Structures are given as C-alpha cells and as structure tokens.
C-alpha cells in the first residue's frame, strides 16, 4: 500500500503528540502524583508508536516503544518520574521530533539512536540519587489555567477538515501589503474627489471605505495565531534552564489563547526567551539563598498575556531578588553611561531601563545560559521595532517584572499625525497616552531641563523641533503649544509640536539602508496626497 498520501498527516499528528508529551512531562515533574497525566503520557507514546509502525518508521517505533515501557512502569507505581528519567524521556521526545522532521523533509537522514535506546532501556531508578529532601511548596494556591490534557491533542483537529486550508505565510504577507496600499490609495482617491468637488463619487467612496475596513479586518484575522503557538515550548525551556542551574522553578503561563499577528509572534519569541533565560539565570536566587531569605525553596516565573483594546501586554515576572535602582545607577556612572547628575535625577523606572543599555550587565557571574548580560538592548530594540513599549518594574528582594506592550497587528496601525517644521510625523497610538495644549507658563525650567506638571506628576517636556534639530518656531509668547504625551518605558515624556493634524490609519513600510540608520524613526508611510510621513520611535527621541 502506498503510504505517501498519509505522510503529512503523520507529521502533523506526531508533532501534536510530542508537544503535549513535553508539556505533560514538565507538569508531572511538578506534581508527581498526577496519575491522569501519566496515563496521558503513556497514550501519546503509544499512539505515536502505532502510527510510526503503520508507516514503517522503525527508528521511531523503537524509541517510542521503550519510552512507553518506562512510562508503563511509572503507571504501575513501580517508581515515580525521577528527574533523570524525565531528562531521558525529554531527550527521547527531542530525538523523535528530529526523526519526524526527517520524515517531513524526506531526507530520512540517519540518526544514531542506539545510545539513547540503551540508556532508556537500562534506566535503573534505584541507581539514581534520590532528589534532595526539601519542602516542595504546595501547588494548591497556584492558579494555573491548565487545559485538560485530554482536550489538548484535539485542538487542531478542526483544521484537518475541508473547512480550512493551509496557506503560505508569504501569501498572507502579500495580502497585508496589498491591503495597506489600497488604504493609502483610498486616501488619495478621497483627496482627489474632495479637490474635484465630485459629489457623485461620495457614495461609492463610502462603500469603498467600508469594504476596505472589512478586508483589512479579515486579512488580519487570517494572520492571527494563538500565543500558544510559541508558548508551548516555554515550560520545557524554563525547566531545562532551571535544571542546568540547579534551581527549582515553577513556571506559570496564562493567556496563551490570546491571538496576535503571526509577524509579531515571530519577532517576539526571541525577546521572550531572552527574558525567561535572564529570569532563571539572574532573576531567581539559588535555592540556598532563597531559603536564607525566608522564601520558598523553588522560585516562580509567571508569563502572562493579556489583551487590552488594541494592544497586548506580555508580562514576565519572577519572585527573585529584584534589582536595586541605586546599584544600577552607580554602575551606570562607573561605566560612563550616565553622568552623576543624570543619576541623581533618575526615577527607579528609568534606572531599571539601564539594563537595556548595550554592554550593561548586572549579574555578578557570567554563565553559558544568559551569555554575558548582553541582549536586553536587543530585546528593547525588537519591542520598539514593533512599535511597542518595554516597561521594567522591580522590587528589591521581591522580584522583577518585564512588560512588553505590543500592538496586535503589524504594518497597518493607528497613528497620531503631528507637524513639526517641514516634517509630518506619525506617533503610533500605542505609545501616546494623551494630547495637551500647553501655555508657556505651564513649562518650568529646572537645571536646564523643562518639565510640566500633569496630574501632580512632573514630566519632562521637549519641543519636537529641538529634538529634530530644527530651528525654533517663530510662535508668539501667548500661543498654545500642542503637546503629545508618550509613555516610554513606563515614564511619561511630553513633546510639544507645531500642530496635531489628527488620527489616521497608516500602512507602515520599513525603511531600508541608508534611511534605516535614522534615529528616532521606525518606518515610513505615504499619505493620500503622496507625501512621505515618518513614523516616530518615541523611545529614541528622549
């Protein structure tokens, strides 16, 4: 019988089994008595074995079989899932994943699995050193919205019917580009109709506008994927990192059903991995330090995704030792990143942002996990490229929280258009908190810094002309200054501008070299009448 028509189905179903298998191993390590999880694990190994046998993939059969045998011993109560066996089972799962990829690519590259099979077959629970005896914190108080394991493997089933089809992501990118260009052209058309005074065209223009809005929404919907697509591997990642570091970590994940544009998911994976690595490596104390500080032996890392109107907050929190703003400032001064005067004026939130300065590392030691503390600058950069905001909060002794606020979609965004000198600049609405009209007398000058009071809080204010090194505007003393307030890394900054032209939906195109070197600009768009409008990277303007 020709089995090739079933190969794709085998690959997708095998992957689904392996993903759930990994999740269950990590879950079972946290609560060893979870017998439904053991049954589930067994079932996944068993199903995979059966499928592979049907297709004639002997190597996969052999590994799945031996994993199934060991799970059967755990199921019968012979022993618990010891960390060393969990390591072996995960290694087995990784090897299976590679073999499945080999099936997919048709390469069928030989993989030497004899050693792994031998180690799995000869695993002896008695020879394993029992895990250190320590109080494992109760899980009763931890609210983890775990999906029932039984439902997990079925969540992709519906996509297997004729109601959905696979489509190249490239095609979806083209659709966004075309939609973006259509939106730009609609503005042009609207402008021409207005100039020509063609009243007859108003009705079809309205129709076009409504249809374009529908098209845009549908195209974006097609590009949305649940956060789980990237998050399902995080529990395993954290678990492996923690094992390497000799730390015990409880990883909690909430909001993985929330959907984001696939382009954003793609760009944000590495930054999240980086923050998670940092949290395990530098954020959490060693078990001894934790016990001495009166904390539970194991640390907790929480990854939460929540949606708020047109943006998503991805937050990664640990209950480790937190960061000391004074220590950070001192280090900044020592490294010549900031002056002592700047340090004196810095808020704690601004001080935490120092960790995103290239080459700035706060960890006492360098490890192979988090590298040399470099990378937070890359994290902040990635967030900014997506027109997002990175906020860092921390409490000494209690932990840190990194929040990435991101738009839900890429490319087509809502922006506030302002004018400054000859330039028109778009501020993504995700960073704008409000607009104001300032009187000259509202601005206070202190130690060479201008600031305003907003709701009792002092925030720095600068003229956008000054930031862009344009000549000062010749406005009169009593004129009102239109001002945009932006949230940059959790701190508010105000920019006075010549004019606020309004809000518009814009199609952002990335800038290519040499324009990509422009500071303070993250992209550009073309307006209805053909002018180029730059999109501000507000964080680079301060």
């Amino acid at each position: 019988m020709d089995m090739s028509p079933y190969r794709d189905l085998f690959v997708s179903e095998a992957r689904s089994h392996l993903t759930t298998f990994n999740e269950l191993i990590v879950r079972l390590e946290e609560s060893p008595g979870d017998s439904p999880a053991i049954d589930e694990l067994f079932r996944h190994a068993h199903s995979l074995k059966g499928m592979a046998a049907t297709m004639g993939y002997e190597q996969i059969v052999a590994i799945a079989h031996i994993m199934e045998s060991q799970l059967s011993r755990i199921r019968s109560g012979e022993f618990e899932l010891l960390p060393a066996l969990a390591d072996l089972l995960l290694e087995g799962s990784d090897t299976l994943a590679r073999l499945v990829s080999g099936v997919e690519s048709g390469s069928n590259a030989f993989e030497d699995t004899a050693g792994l099979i031998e180690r799995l077959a000869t695993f002896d629970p008695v020879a394993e050193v029992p895990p250190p005896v320590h109080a494992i914190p109760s899980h009763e108080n931890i609210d983890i919205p775990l999906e029932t394991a039984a439902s997990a493997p079925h969540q992709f089933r519906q996509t297997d019917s004729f109601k959905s089809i696979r489509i190249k992501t490239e095609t979806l990118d083209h659709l966004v580009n075309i939609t973006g260009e259509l939106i730009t052209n609609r503005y042009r058309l609207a402008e021409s109709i207005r100039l020509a005074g063609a009243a007859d065209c108003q009705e079809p223009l309205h129709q076009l506008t409504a249809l374009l809005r529908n098209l845009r929404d549908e195209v974006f919907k097609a590009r949305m994927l649940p956060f789980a697509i990237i998050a399902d591997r995080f529990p395993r990642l954290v678990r492996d990192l923690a094992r390497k570091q000799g730390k015990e970590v409880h990883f909690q994940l909430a909001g993985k059903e929330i959907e984001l544009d696939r382009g954003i998911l793609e760009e944000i994976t590495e930054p999240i991995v980086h923050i998670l690595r940092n949290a395990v490596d530098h954020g959490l104390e060693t078990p001894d330090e934790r016990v001495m500080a009166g904390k539970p032996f194991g640390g907790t890392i929480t990854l939460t995704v929540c949606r708020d109107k047109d943006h998503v907050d991805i937050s990664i929190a640990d209950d480790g030792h937190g960061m000391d703003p004074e220590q950070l400032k001192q280090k900044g001064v020592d490294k010549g990143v900031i002056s002592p005067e700047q340090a004196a004026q810095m808020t704690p939130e601004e001080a935490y942002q120092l960790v995103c300065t290239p080459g700035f590392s706060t960890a006492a030691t360098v490890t192979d996990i988090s590298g040399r503390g470099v990378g937070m600058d890359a994290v902040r950069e990635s967030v900014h490229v997506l027109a997002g905001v990175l906020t860092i909060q921390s409490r000494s002794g209690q932990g840190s929280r990194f929040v990435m606020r991101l738009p839900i979609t890429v490319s087509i965004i809502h922006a506030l258009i302002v004018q400054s000198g000859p330039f028109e600049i778009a501020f993504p609405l995700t960073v704008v908190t409000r607009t104001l009209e300032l009187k000259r007398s509202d601005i206070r000058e202190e130690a060479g810094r201008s600031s305003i009071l907003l709701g009792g809080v002092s925030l720095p204010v600068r003229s956008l002309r000054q930031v862009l090194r344009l000549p000062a505007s010749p406005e009169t003393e009593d004129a009102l200054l239109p001002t945009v307030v932006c949230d940059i890394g959790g701190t508010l900054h105000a920019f006075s501008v010549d004019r606020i032209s309004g809000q518009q939906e814009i199609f952002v195109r990335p800038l290519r070299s040499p324009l990509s070197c422009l500071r303070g600009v993250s992209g550009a768009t073309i307006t209805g009448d053909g002018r180029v409008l730059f999109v501000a990277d507000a964080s680079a303007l301060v």
Partner: protein
Amino acid sequence: MSRTVMIVDDSLFMRKIMRGILVQKGYIVSAEAASGIEAMRNLHTGHPDIILLDIILPDSNGLDLLESIITACPDSKVVVCSSIGEAQVIQKSLDLGAKAYIQKPFTPDKVADVLENLED
C-alpha cells in the same frame, strides 16, 4: 455480507488509513469517531455492520467502551484494533464479545482477511 463500518480511533491519521483500506476493499465507512462519547453518539443514529474499535482512547477505558457498544448494538460486529499485543488484553476483548482482534500495525490484506471471515 457485512458492508457498513464505523471506525473508532482518536488518531485522524489512523482513521484516514483505515478508511483508505476499507474503501479499497469495497466497504462503506458509515461513520468515524475520535472518542468513546462520539462513538456512542453515532450509534444513536444507526448501527453499522462492523465497528472497528481502538481501545486506547482519551476519554474512555477501551474495554468498558467495548462492553457498552456491544450492549448498545448487539447486532454489530465489533473488531478491536489496537497496538497492544498482550495476550490477556486480546483474550479479555474476545471474552467481552469482540469478534476479532487486529493488532497494529496492520496491512490492508490483514484487515480485509479478518473482516471477510467474521462469523455471523
């Protein structure tokens, strides 16, 4: 001759392969079920001549399900189809009323052979 078949297997992959074999051999696949509940629900709408039953399912103990199915439609012939090769599981299935036991992996001829020779 028995011609309509319901396939009960949680793996879409397995169901598709089985369907391919059955159609090729001239059977009519009247229903597919991915779980015990789905299988029982399908039985409300009609009894197939043959039920091919995988006994490792996410929501049910396969042998309990086997009993329920046989009670619900005693006229259908249930054939257990599983990769479990333990003699006691096979015997238990037959004791409970399964007409045959096909061990995975199967070949099209093996499936056809077993189904053609089911006793009435």
